[in-house]
């Protein structure tokens, strides 16, 4: 079915070997060496056509020979598909292949574009989140500078990093803390009303995050911080019946 591996030069009618032998191409020009390429192309395509015709004809003849031989020998002909049928089905198959490939290519482009957009959005969101955390860290640093007063300038890098680590942990623990705080509040309301100083309760969590670096200052803000970690530590939450983990009751170690 292709023009590929058969050499020209079989006996034929349309294009004779002699034609090819006698064929002389025109020289292109003084400046461009070789033959005139349009001439060469035309001959080549004729040769290809001719070859294809030969191959098809040969196959058809083979079909016929086979059928005749079987007829002569009186054996039933195994219904071998004709060359023409094979060719038709082959090109139908190629069309189907091309459609499927096109559909898959389309779906590949769609999904990879969609993914690229998605990943970019996620990346930006995470970067923004990173920026927010950083801003929070800077703000926290400023607050503590304000609170720690004059010796703030001497704070080491280590302390800063500790702060950052704390803030990260705080972020993660926020939900746990909030829940245990609310529970603590509830149990407080139920059981400890009147014993604890009610005025203390609502303030603590709000003050907690900014207090970390001043832990060596033995004031009540440091104590508040410990109160919060206790609430986020595993085991310090709901399960601990009987020791109501109110922020208030833990705030004075």
């Amino acid at each position, binding site marked *: 079915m292709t023009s590929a591996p058969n050499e020209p030069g079989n006996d034929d009618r349309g294009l004779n070997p002699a034609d090819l032998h006698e064929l002389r191409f025109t020289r292109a020009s003084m400046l461009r060496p070789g033959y005139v390429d349009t001439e060469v192309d035309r001959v080549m395509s004729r040769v290809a056509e001719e070859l294809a015709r030969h191959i098809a004809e040969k196959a058809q003849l083979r079909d016929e020979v086979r059928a005749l031989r079987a007829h002569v020998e009186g054996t039933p002909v195994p219904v071998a598909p004709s060359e023409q049928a094979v060719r038709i089905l082959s090109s139908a198959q190629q069309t189907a292949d091309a459609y499927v490939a096109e559909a898959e*290519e389309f779906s590949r482009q769609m999904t990879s574009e969609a993914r690229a957009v998605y990943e970019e959005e996620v990346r930006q969101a995470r970067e923004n989140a990173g920026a927010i955390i950083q801003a929070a860290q800077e703000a926290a640093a400023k607050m503590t500078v304000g609170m720690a007063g004059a010796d703030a300038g001497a704070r080491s890098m280590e302390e800063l990093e500790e702060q950052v680590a704390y803030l990260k942990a705080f972020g993660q623990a926020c939900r746990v803390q909030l829940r245990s705080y609310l529970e603590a509040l509830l149990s407080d309301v139920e059981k400890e009303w009147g014993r604890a100083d009610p005025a203390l309760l609502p303030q603590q969590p709000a003050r907690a995050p900014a207090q970390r670096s001043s832990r060596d200052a033995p004031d009540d803000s440091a104590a508040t911080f410990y109160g919060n970690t206790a609430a986020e530590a595993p085991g310090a939450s709901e399960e601990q019946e009987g020791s109501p983990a109110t922020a208030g009751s833990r705030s004075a170690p």
Partner: protein
Amino acid sequence: MDIAAMRANFAKAAATGDEAPLYFYSHLFLSHPETRQMFPVSMAHQRDRLFSALGDVVARVDDLDALVPILQQLGRDHRKFGTLAAHYPAVGASLLATLEHFDDQWSPELAKDWTEAYTLVAEVMTAAADEAAEQPAWWDADVVAHETRAIDVAVLRIRPRAQYDYVAGQSLSLETNVRPRLWRYYSPANAPRPDGLMEIHVKARDGGPVSSALVRRVGVGDVLRLGPPVGHISLDAESDRDLLLIAGGMGLAPLKALIDQVSRRGPARRVDLFVGARNDDHHYDRADLRRLEQENPWLSVTLAVSEDKLSSLEHGDVGDVVMRHGPWLSREVYVAGPGVMVDDTVSRLREHGVPSRRIHSEVFAPSRPGPSLDGEVTE
């Protein structure tokens, strides 16, 4: 058999590229239309593989000892396509017609040699298929849960309707009713369970018909068809050496099955699992791995990311990360994932001094180069 002549004859057909296989299939479908429905609609990618593979086999027809086990496995596996013994002569006739069509010097001797070779191969395959006759040709499995874990990853739980025997770490080929006749390999992520449930992890590949369907179309109530299990990974029952498991992407699935096996059956041993992915989001099974790590003191799990600067996980290719820990000289090592990752990791382990016989690997090769007609590679 004049093998040299057969090779020369085959080379002529192979030299036509797509023409010969195209001719072969068209011939087959015309002479035996009942075989058409066994093949997928598009066969662009099967065709060239078939012919190059045939060439390999012709080259080895004189080394039947090496070929026989491969052919037996192939024959057993063919039952899942619905292949019957009666189909083999049909295929043989089309193969011969093809080889004849593309060879001007076709001769009765060639015809005789090819018939002999084909008959031999077909006999080995059909005999193996017959021997496996008491086994189902394929297993229907119900999808009982479908969970999307990342934009392109889903975890499916499936339950075969008949008993399906396999070993932790093996893979199986499967077909879905929404993508008929396309068979692809997946690895159960658990060891065999008494209730038969299997967990399959699938990542949708762009333009990949089967994986996208499994992630986005298939749901609870759909039925999958499973072929028999295959694979290069399994635990040596005799050994209780500590394990080092290294997964790239979806390569996690068969390694998780090994962990499951250790926890169900023992023997007690240390297991270190490393999982590499591009970024945080691709660690689709993180929560469950953390749970396993907490429940099993003998297990440690390290997650790594290769392209995520913000991640709090370890950074680097998973092979790098593994090498930062260790030493691993006494371990039995299992590696699964994409080809590049597996090759890279295995060669680093060898350099590290782990003997080759203690390194086992499974490459999650794509079923074909790419979805376009010319097979352009996309990843």
